[in-house]
């Protein structure tokens, strides 16, 4: 299977090493293996694979992760550009 990769350096995912307690929940919920836990801290090992779903942020008990999460769908972005509070998919 050819690896599917989207645009590079576009995602807003950030991880605060100071706040991280190393529970590893981010590495469990991430569907693209973005996080690994090394030396008791979460590390973004594959940040470009992030799809900004927000699972890691929502499940981080120490609030160490931030990302502008949302559905990357065309209609949603058009609604956003037009300032409409419309549905996505």
């Amino acid at each position, binding site marked *: *299977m*050819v*690896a*599917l*990769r*989207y*645009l*590079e350096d*576009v*995602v*807003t995912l950030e991880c605060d090493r100071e706040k991280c307690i190393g529970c590893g*929940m981010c590495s*469990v*919920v*991430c*569907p*693209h*293996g973005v996080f690994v836990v090394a030396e008791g801290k979460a590390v973004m090992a594959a940040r470009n*694979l*992030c*799809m*900004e*779903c*927000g*699972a890691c942020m*929502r*499940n981080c*008990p120490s609030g160490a992760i931030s990302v*502008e*999460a*949302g*559905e*990357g*769908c*065309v*209609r*949603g*972005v*058009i609604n*956003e*550009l037009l300032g409409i509070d419309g549905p*996505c*998919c």
Partner: protein
Amino acid sequence: MNAPANGAFSKMILPMAKEVPSGAGEFHLPSADQSFICGTVATPVGRIPRADSELTRKDLRGHYLVRWNIGRDHFTVEPGLYGLGHPGSDSPVLVTANYKLTFDLLRQTLVGRDAWILVLDTKGINVWCAAGKGTFGTEELLDRIQASRLGEVVNHGKIIVPQLGAPGLAAFEIKKYAGFRVVYGPVQMSDLPVFLDNNCRATAEMRIKEFPFKERLVLVPVEVMQGLQQGVPLMLLFFLVAGFAGNDPFLRAALVHGLPAAFAVLAGIVAGNIVTPLLLPWIPGKAFSVKGAIAGLVVFSFVFTGSDVRAMGYSLLESSSWLLVTLAFSSRLGMAFTGASTFTSLNGVRKEMLRAMPAQFAAIVMGIGLWATALWLG
């Protein structure tokens, strides 16, 4: 198991919570009057409807239709707790969405097993999309746990939530407010039996979302239907307007000049909604709009460069307009597939759209403009 007392958190509002609807958290069992119910399971809280793990022809017919975007908005099951097989207080609890396709595939996957299925009210949307919207979320799960008195039905205090539901709910909040420990199940439902047999442990592979050919293939019909929704009005317009061109009778003019333009739209739909999804990994480019345009160019060259088309003697102006129409559609519809794909990010899509949409808009306006120019001034 520290089950929450009745009404303990029905009025609780979490940081990201909306107003809790009235009646939320009150004891409620789903109706037994649903096609897939085959009895009840006796529990301390009452008789819980038992779902059949065998799918009927009617179920499968519904699945086929929703894959074609037919009846997809009302393909739901009632939220609440269901039994599967002969579950007891130590049987696993699996949380899912009330999209009937999801629910049906889950009960089919668990055939021969005893389990509880806790269906959340996601308004008929699948787990992943509902989690993105927050309807598959913390408050809904807390409400559903309480409304089903789950703490009195099972004794293990553990619930299995699909990993792709994680964007919507926080495991630590479920633990904090309901006392239930969330175990995230595998990404793919098909891995559930192995996961359950392996003491609810997922392998690293089970945690990764791939997007294989087969999965892209089942999405094609829905994509095509959505492409046609956008394309058919323009195709009809091409026929109608072309009928008035030149001195030919209406029908002949509509056929001669409308048909190829309509075919240009169709070529764009084929390229953007069929070729792009299916050949996604192999089409050059990272942006879906680029992949769509490349697919459009290829499909166009198959459809319009045959000797029979050349023999018709269309002007360069008119045939150029077809190319622009095809490219506009294929790029736009290919880009729309980001919404169904499993590896594109919001900020990536936003960046791609801001760059691609002006080009797509220019292509369709110029395409229609050239076509009209060729018909009346050419």
